[in-house]
């Protein structure tokens, strides 16, 4: 239940380059913000600064209009979910979830009723007496989520919460995180390196690279109007095809290229280098006059096959080369 405003946040480690540089973001009440970028781009550092676990070198953070720069983490009223779950090994699942209430001096009966209620929504009621050592990865992360929502924090912070899970569990929990956030309405900052996760979860996505924000926008905006080649190639299930044309960089998404097995007037002729089926469609690599392209179609692609390809002009993205 809070608005977050971050201005000119910077983090410089002694003797190294800027880990985070001029980070500006305003998150509206109840908004789901995903910060995405390759590893080492400064996204986790940013999250840790919001949490108060790391001291910013410059800049300020406002929560509901009040500065929280001087507050230690325990006074910020935020809840965080970690990649490695960070559960208290010496406590049961119940005690883990009760911990944030216990340290606040909440009465025992109230703790019990709150924890049981949260456990029910997360479908972990049967696990409450177990210690983290006896839980699977997915169950551990559910307990960690329970620990986060058992009190209504002002902000959820999530640091790659799904990265340690297998693919199936990742999809299931991703959906649960989304529903949980919608239901509780808690403003959320979520960090990941996975563009698919960012697309699926975010109201707005912040793309970071080398400590700087490249672009902020809804998943749709980032997909159809990427601000630069980095953002363009970062989003989409298949990598965007990029080539240079004079002082411009051009790009086209594989799904925007039309393909034909037979001759079509004015279409470009190309030869397939490889082709494979990914479960939904056929993906191929071709060599054409602009370079190596990734293409896709719903018919079988074979090596050495000759195809004809075409891309409508309005689907080509162009950026001035720097």
């Amino acid at each position: 239940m809070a608005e977050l405003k971050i201005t000119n946040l910077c983090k410089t480690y002694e003797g190294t380059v800027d880990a985070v540089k001029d980070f500006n973001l305003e998150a509206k009440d109840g908004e789901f913000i995903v910060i995405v970028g390759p590893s080492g781009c400064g996204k986790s550092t940013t999250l840790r600064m919001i949490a108060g676990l790391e001291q910013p070198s410059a800049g300020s953070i406002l929560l509901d209009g009040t500065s929280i720069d001087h507050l230690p983490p325990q006074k910020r009223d935020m809840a965080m979910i970690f990649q490695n779950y960070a559960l208290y090994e010496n406590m049961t699942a119940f005690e883990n979830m009760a911990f944030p209430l216990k340290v606040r001096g909440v009465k025992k009966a109230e703790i019990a009723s709150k924890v049981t209620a949260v456990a029910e929504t997360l479908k972990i009621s049967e696990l409450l007496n177990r210690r983290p050592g006896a839980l699977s990865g997915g169950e551990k992360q559910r307990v960690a989520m329970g620990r986060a929502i058992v009190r209504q924090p002002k902000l959820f912070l999530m640091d790659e919460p799904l990265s340690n899970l297998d693919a199936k569990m990742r999809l299931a929990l991703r959906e649960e995180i989304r529903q949980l956030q919608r239901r509780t309405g808690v403003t959320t900052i979520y960090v990941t390196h996975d563009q698919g996760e960012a697309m699926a979860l975010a109201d707005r996505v912040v793309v970071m690279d080398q400590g700087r924000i490249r672009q902020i926008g809804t998943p749709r905006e980032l997909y159809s109007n990427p601000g630069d080649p980095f953002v363009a190639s970062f989003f989409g299930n298949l990598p965007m095809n990029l080539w240079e044309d004079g002082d411009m960089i051009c790009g086209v998404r594989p799904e925007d290229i039309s393909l034909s097995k037979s001759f079509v007037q004015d279409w470009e002729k190309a030869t397939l280098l490889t082709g494979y089926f990914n479960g939904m469609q056929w993906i191929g690599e071709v060599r054409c006059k602009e370079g190596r392209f990734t293409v896709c179609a719903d018919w079988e692609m074979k090596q050495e096959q000759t195809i004809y390809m075409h891309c409508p002009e309005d689907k080509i993205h162009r950026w001035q080369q720097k």
Partner: protein
Amino acid sequence: MRNNRSGYLFILLSLAGVSVFLMLPYLDILLKSFSTGNEGVSIGLDNFKQILQNEAFRIATKNTVRFIAVCIPLLLILSLAISIYIYENPKLGSMVKTSFLIPMAIPVTSVVLMWRFLFDDNGILNGILCSLGFNTVSWMNGSAAFWILVGSYIWKNLGYNIILWLAALATIDPQVQSAAKLDGASGFQRLFRITLPSVKNGTFIVVVLAILNSFKVFREAYLVAGDYPHDSIYLTQHLFNNWFRELELNKLAAGAVLDSVILIILILVLQKCWKKGGTKL
């Protein structure tokens, strides 16, 4: 099965060493403790009765027990407090850690020499007292000797114990501490609910090592004060040394067996305590 066999191969060498130099001599001592002379005539528990009535044995045992009872808790609490302080303030860095380890690297003889300079009747401390107009103190020939021995033990073992505690503390996932901070736990709450429960399992080995190391202060006491130091620091090792020199081998054997039994019981009790704590955890 093959794995098992190669496992035995690996321990064979140290097992042989332990057998020849520790287990077999211990069996020999066990036999001697129930017999008289070197011939091995069995006299039952007579040796034990004799040493239990021996004044020197009583004083030595009392001193040793008192020494351990004072030193171990003091050392454990002091080293744990310092290591938690270092753990919570990582910026202190390795300088501090290293400085605590220096006493370990100083050879016993140098330490003893320093003792003599400091605590001799005409030593530095008395010199200072004298120049300030106080009476001199006979440091090594009074009850102060015990506390000097305690201080020396703490001084020498503090660094080692700090390193052991730091190793235990290093096993705590830093993210767990971060999680606790965000969950709203204060410094004290984190210390008592997260940090201390996490190092609990390391405590057993630290305590056992501290007890075993406490027997080594005999070297200092012996080198400073010789065979018959002041009554307050006359330890079981002094007694055994003197018995050995006087060829009282059967008394020596009985004393050693008694001591080893006490130690084994102590360790078993400690182990049981921790196991119980472990399941309760």
